[in-house]
């Protein structure tokens, strides 16, 4: 059985988990076994809705104390539930929580793990999965040698697939281990699209000259319904908040569309965004290295081009 860990934030199931479920369902189909979902904590959604993305069954350990992650507690629970259910493949999303617990769960299950996976396993000769390495600059095909396999998949690498399976929810009755950490403060960024979940991202670099000029970028992002990002020097200079920094030493993202404005395209920047499906580069220097990694390019002054692009987006919406 393939068991998919369903992650939540603020009692809402994460899109990355639905993608992991779609992926787990595809593996189950390939191997001719069932796919089941595991939910810890309380969530607002009706859990039978997980059938949409393929879950044959949903196991739910409903306890509010599990809503925020305690690696030790979550690891112990997921590992013992997986053991009880005889899961042979475990799938996690490679998001904040998934990356924190999946390797520990693998250790507890004596299972081989590959994180950062971006394709379905090849089972013609063993069990080989592909992962991104060198910050997206290459792929490694890795064989998992153990009977139980653990996979953490990159966000936006597989997409959502609807199966519309009928599903039942089973409550798990299991004692919760003592907490190992105590959450004392939560600081939320309200009203923004989280960068790692965004389909569309508009990003700015040093070419925008200063924080006072970000208005044109924000207008474009708003017109598109896009999240915003920036290059490292921009966040280092506090023009933009740190959580917007993408690249090798920032967040790695893979949206459908990445629009880079006034960013030169240094190799360390590209490492964070080169998995984007479509890249648009706006830069006044026709020699900027970013154009080599782009699908569409506009050579010119961002201060003139970006407002025109925003207007064109808004026009296209109304027609």
């Amino acid at each position, binding site marked *: 059985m393939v068991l998919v860990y369903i992650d939540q*934030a*603020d009692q809402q199931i994460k899109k990355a988990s639905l993608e992991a479920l779609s992926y787990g369902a595809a593996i189950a189909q390939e191997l001719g076994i069932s796919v089941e979902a595991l939910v810890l904590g309380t969530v607002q959604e009706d859990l039978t809705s997980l059938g949409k993305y393929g879950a044959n069954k949903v196991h739910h350990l409903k306890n509010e104390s599990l809503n*925020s992650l305690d690696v*030790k507690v979550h690891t112990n629970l997921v590992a013992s539930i997986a053991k009880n259910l005889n899961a042979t493949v475990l799938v996690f999303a490679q*998001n*904040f929580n998934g990356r*924190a*617990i*999946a*390797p*520990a*769960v*693998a*250790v507890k299950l*004596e299972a*081989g*793990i590959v*994180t950062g996976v971006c394709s379905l396993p090849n089972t013609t000769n063993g069990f080989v999965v592909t992962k991104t*390495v060198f*910050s997206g*600059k*290459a*792929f*490694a*095909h*890795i*064989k998992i*040698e153990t009977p139980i396999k653990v996979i953490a998949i990159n966000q936006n690498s597989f997409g959502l697939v609807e199966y519309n399976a009928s599903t039942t929810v089973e409550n798990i009755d299991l004692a919760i281990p003592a907490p*190992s*950490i*105590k*959450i*004392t403060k*939560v*600081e939320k*960024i309200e009203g923004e699209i989280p960068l*790692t*979940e965004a*389909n*569309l991202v508009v990003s700015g670099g040093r070419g925008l000259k200063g924080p006072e000029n970000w208005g044109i970028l924000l207008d474009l992002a708003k017109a598109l319904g896009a999240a915003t990002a920036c290059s490292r020097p921009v966040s280092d200079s506090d023009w933009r908040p*740190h959580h917007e920094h993408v690249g*090798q*030493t920032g967040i790695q993202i893979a949206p459908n*569309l990445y629009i880079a404005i006034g960013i030169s395209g240094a190799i360390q920047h590209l490492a964070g965004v080169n998995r984007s499906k*479509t890249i648009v580069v706006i830069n006044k220097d026709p020699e900027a290295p970013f154009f*080599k990694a*782009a*699908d*569409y*390019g*506009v*050579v010119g002054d961002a201060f*003139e081009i970006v407002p*025109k*692009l925003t*207007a*064109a*987006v808004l*026009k*296209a919406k109304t027609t």
Partner: protein
Amino acid sequence: MKILVCISKTPDTTAKIAFVEGNTKFDETAVQWIINPYDEWYALVRAIELKEKDPATIIHLVTVGGVDAEPIIRKALALGGDEAIRIDCNSNDSFTVANQIAAVAKEGAYDLIFTGKETIDFNSASIGSMLSALLDLPFISLATHFELNGNTASVKREIESGEETAEVNLPVIVSCQKGVAEQRIPNMRGIMAARSKPLKVLTAIETKASTSINHFDLPPAKSGVKLIDPENMDELVRLLKEEAKVI
């Protein structure tokens, strides 16, 4: 206070990525090696800052690798730390590496174990989490801020919708990223001092790898950029809609 900092050797961020031996090995020709930036800039520097506050603190650096990892661990010692340990083991399997470090950690009875968020070559982000299971210790991943108050640590970590602060009793494992500390440049005194700091070499313990690399490959090259007239943004929007189908 005893701190263990995990140090990994990685290719420089600008290294050319290519493979040899039938695409089964990373091509190391002309590659410059560096300390994995997350290990150096955040994990190590924060440990050094803690020692500056409390000079009784002892910092050990640990790396799992061959002799070629020694210049890197010396570089790390030039920034700070009292002693380095190299476990003589060449492996790309995270589980093998974590087991080696766990053996050292058990022996050393550390109050704090720091790792970087991930290495920039394999990007597996697995060691801290695996150590937590192997050592049965709490683990806080993706820390952006770390403070010690006696026997407890207050750690800010990144979550989906922002940040949260957790309090945890020592010993604890923490994976560090931007925010935890600021990059430092080693000075001449540090470089000189590093030469005489002890570097212990340990033989690897027996483990069985749970994964193996089949082969590597490179992503297909982009077909080339399509340049759009800056005066015709309607055309760009049309292409994004009809050709790329992303908006």
